[in-house]
């Protein structure tokens, strides 16, 4: 079954099937922008175009061309003492989860029914680096190894809240957070859960810094300039984004505030290169197209795209091509921005935080800007929201992510009526 037939069948499955509708009832972030103070602070700073990427003083950064990063300030004061002894990655996620659960106002007795899907690229890598340094001290090794395990973030949340629903951890490069959201939504669609915690987290680490620096992917002028002609690369950062996904009727029955629905999603692989994306954007365009083809309201248009927009030469031009490939002339009606210009690249957390940006943009009818975008690259000609936020009514928006190995994921959010 190919092409149009496959699309038609998928559309029919999504619209006429017993698959349940998934809505968003809570969001929470921990990023260098608000340093854990809450999603409202994050959103206001984002719309004001605040730059959270700052010079770093870590000894391991000496001698590198890049001397900036995004780091979350003292956020642990917002966590209770039970999180002592966990890796930083788990703590970032825990705080975002705490904010999301409060935002969703889920009754405490309902929380154990929830499940969790967490995405990360390097997980407890700080514990991992410490473990590798202290291999000669076995008495410390066991605890560090447990924190280092990639699944430790999801496990920590599951244990803390005694969750009994579906659980899992996924790692798909920069698409990790989005794929976690996608997999969690699938549990609800298929009737395995009524309510799920989903999101991503990653920390700023020497490991990642040395790796991206060796690949010459890091910015060399202290700024992240997505889609700019003079863009010089990305800035590493850290953070977490968590969404509460819920089956629509379940949310309505408990009187929850519904932000929007997660209308559709799709993933694809470039199958091209271990690091660089397929330059013509074919893989990402397939994710976009597949996500669009399964939306019930085919008359609706995408009003805003929260781009992956890392600020690298390869990604930004690929992404612009993918968007134009799918939307054609309609590209000029779609506002685009990249919040990585402000918070940097939070790796596995990025696509989850950007999903939250879509949710908030729809709620507040405001699109945060791409800062540092001064000279548009002709290869990246899109309807950029640059320098300052744009007030715009958004009925449908999309979050895009693309990662190492050719991973691509598109999430589509629709206003809830």
């Amino acid at each position, binding site marked *: 079954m190919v092409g149009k037939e496959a699309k038609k069948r998928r559309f029919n499955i999504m619209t006429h099937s017993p698959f349940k509708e998934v809505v968003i009832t809570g969001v929470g972030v921990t990023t260098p922008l608000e340093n854990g103070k809450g999603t409202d602070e994050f959103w206001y700073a984002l719309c004001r175009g605040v730059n959270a990427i700052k010079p770093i003083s870590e000894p391991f950064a000496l001698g590198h061309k890049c001397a900036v990063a995004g780091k979350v300030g003292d956020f642990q004061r917002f966590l209770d003492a039970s999180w002592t002894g966990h890796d930083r990655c788990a703590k970032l996620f825990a705080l975002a989860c705490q904010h999301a659960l409060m935002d969703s106002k889920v009754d405490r007795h309902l929380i154990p029914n929830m499940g969790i899907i967490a995405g990360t690229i390097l997980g407890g890598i700080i514990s991992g680096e410490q473990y590798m340094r202290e291999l000669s001290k076995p008495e410390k090794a066991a605890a560090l190894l447990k924190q280092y395990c990639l699944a430790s973030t999801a496990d920590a949340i599951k*244990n803390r809240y005694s969750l009994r629903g579906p659980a*899992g951890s996924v790692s798909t490069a920069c698409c990790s957070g989005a794929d976690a959201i996608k997999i969690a939504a699938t549990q609800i669609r*298929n009737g395995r859960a009524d309510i799920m915690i989903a999101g991503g987290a990653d920390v700023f680490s020497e*490991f990642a810094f040395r790796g991206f620096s060796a690949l010459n992917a890091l910015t060399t002028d202290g700024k992240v300039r997505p889609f700019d002609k003079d863009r010089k690369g990305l800035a590493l950062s850290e953070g977490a984004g968590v969404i509460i996904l819920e089956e629509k009727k379940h949310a309505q029955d408990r009187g929850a505030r519904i932000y929007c629905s997660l209308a559709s999603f799709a993933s694809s692989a470039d199958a091209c290169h*271990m690091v660089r994306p397929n330059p013509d954007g074919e893989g990402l365009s397939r994710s976009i197209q597949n996500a669009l083809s399964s939306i019930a309201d085919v008359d609706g248009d995408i009003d805003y795209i929260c781009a992956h927009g890392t600020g690298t030469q390869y990604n930004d031009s690929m992404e612009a091509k993918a968007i134009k490939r799918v939307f054609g002339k309609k590209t000029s009606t779609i506002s685009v921005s990249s919040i990585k210009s402000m918070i940097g690249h939070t790796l596995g957390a990025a696509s989850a935080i950007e999903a939250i940006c879509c949710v908030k943009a729809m709620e507040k009818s405001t699109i945060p800007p791409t800062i540092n975008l001064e000279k548009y690259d002709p290869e990246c000609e899109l309807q950029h929201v640059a320098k300052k936020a744009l007030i715009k009514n958004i009925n449908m928006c999309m979050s895009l992510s693309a*990662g190492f190995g050719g991973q691509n994921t598109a999430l589509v959010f629709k206003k809830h009526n």
Partner: protein
Amino acid sequence: MRTEIAITGMSVLSGAGGSASALCKHCVDGKNAASDINIEAYENDLVSVNSGERELYRIQKMLFIAFLKASRMARAGSEAILPERTGICLGNCHGLEEFRSGFFNHYTKSEPALTSPALFPFTTANALASWLAIQTGVKGANLTFISDGTSSAEAILAACDLITANECDAVFVGGISVLDLNLRDEFLAAGFRHEIAGMLLLESASHARSRGIDPIAVLKDIKNISLTKDEMAAVRQNGSILKILNKTRSNLSPDIAEMVYLGNELGDNGPGLVPRDALTSMEKLNVFPLNAVVGNIFDAAGVFGAALSVELLDRQNNGKWCPLRSSQEGILHSTVNSSGTAITMLIRKA
């Protein structure tokens, strides 16, 4: 799950040989299969991918051979399987530890300007699945699961969901476990014995039949649940998950045969490995304790347990001795990781 999901291709590589039936025979004969995979036997198959600037890493070879064998069994090279509608789901939490420690050791000794990026792309868990997509041209959804012992079982579940949602027509589901020499003691303490790579090809039964392929087995009733501490303790004590499932979540026949993997964390002490005693307990309880017989195979447990379940069902059908008593419902295959995530599925002959 509305769509009937079929297994149409299957492969397991281990020290016992290149097939699930070879390892199954080792297990039921009580033999020790704890040796390296004879990769050299597959050099001809690897020629097409092993011709780059550098020799493939061992883990890449294992994964590719597993893929080739499963895909050949399912005749997946046919035009009816489109690359854009074929996905890859892989369980790989620990497989790339050697690359992470290798990159760590490299950069801690190198100046910034002299740090090579060569190893870095292989330090992210999704690298293997992405590499496989590049080699095979498989362009559908590409997901890597990192939940320790339930990794490849979650991959099976995700694959079924991709097919049910019509996002993919077919999905290659893999699980791979190798010994990292830097973590050798921790792996061995946790009960690791084999390097192992397994691959299944899943597709809807109707899609398989439409391209002239008879399913080998079908999967039904897949669940993803989190056990409480008390439930975990009960499962560990009894070696069986059936009673716990039937208490609150299922209504399965109490006579159903079980294939059970109980994971423990890297570095924790694993269960004792005594195949003869394990075989005796199997017949009494109608439970095949995967760890006790095969060892702790971490990420590969889901795929391997599914493949072994199919082999045991074949044994029953062919009148060969089988440690599990037959049941029309098939075998309940369960993987439980150390944090209590449990993925369960019924596997029946098609």
